[in-house]
């Protein structure tokens, strides 16, 4: 059963969100979804970029002014 895990990166600046995302994704199983919560616009660029390069499915949602949730589905 695939699960959804939230990763709180609010108030964190680069490159902390990216490194946290890399570490968190390692612990997940195939098909699981990691929801990275960020409020740092650079992370909104480099986290999805990294995840897409790794081949995962990525979606970004702007949840509030300057706040985003990046949905990463682990595909490999």
């Amino acid at each position, binding site marked *: 059963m695939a699960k959804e895990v939230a990763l709180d990166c*609010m*108030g964190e600046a680069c*490159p*902390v969100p990216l*490194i946290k995302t890399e570490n968190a994704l390692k612990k997940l199983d195939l098909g699981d979804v990691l929801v990275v919560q960020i*409020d740092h*616009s650079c992370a909104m660029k480099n986290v999805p970029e990294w995840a897409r390069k790794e081949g995962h499915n990525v979606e970004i949602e702007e949840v*509030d*002014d*300057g706040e985003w949730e990046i949905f990463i589905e682990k595909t490999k």
Partner: protein
Amino acid sequence: MDIKNNKFYQMWFKNAWTYVVGAVLLSLFQIVTLATTNDPWGVSGPFANWGAWLYRAVGGSVDKWYYFSSKGAQATLAGGFFKDAGSIRNLGVIVGALLAALLASQFKFKKIKSVKQVAAAVLGGLLMGYGARIAAGCNIGALFSGIASLSLSGWVFALFLFLGAMAGSKLLVKYFM
């Protein structure tokens, strides 16, 4: 029509510009800066002047400091904030960044996560500021403008910036992960 869905609003104000667009604009405007002010673009130098003005405002004096001993530095300090092109430019960068965040409706007061984060930010800021001044330049003055002026020193700066970033990343992973 809702401006949020307007194609040009999204292209110019909402979505981040590409690195290439940023690089081209920075290159063009550093030429404009050199042509209009006769100095290459620098960022951290004016901050030292801000510090000197603040120190003077509370009754201190930097007249005997070696750093401000040159005629040029004294003239800049005597001229004041509004006569210092670098100071106005730095103010423009700050106001411009604020405006860009507001136009994209991404402005937000971020909460402080921990005392550790504050300590690291303060320590990092002090080290960067001090380092930039004893190196006579920061990422912009020494690296960007150095390389743009075809100076070897810019490339040497780049090499050690890279080594420093590697060491910094290791420390970051060790203490912040």
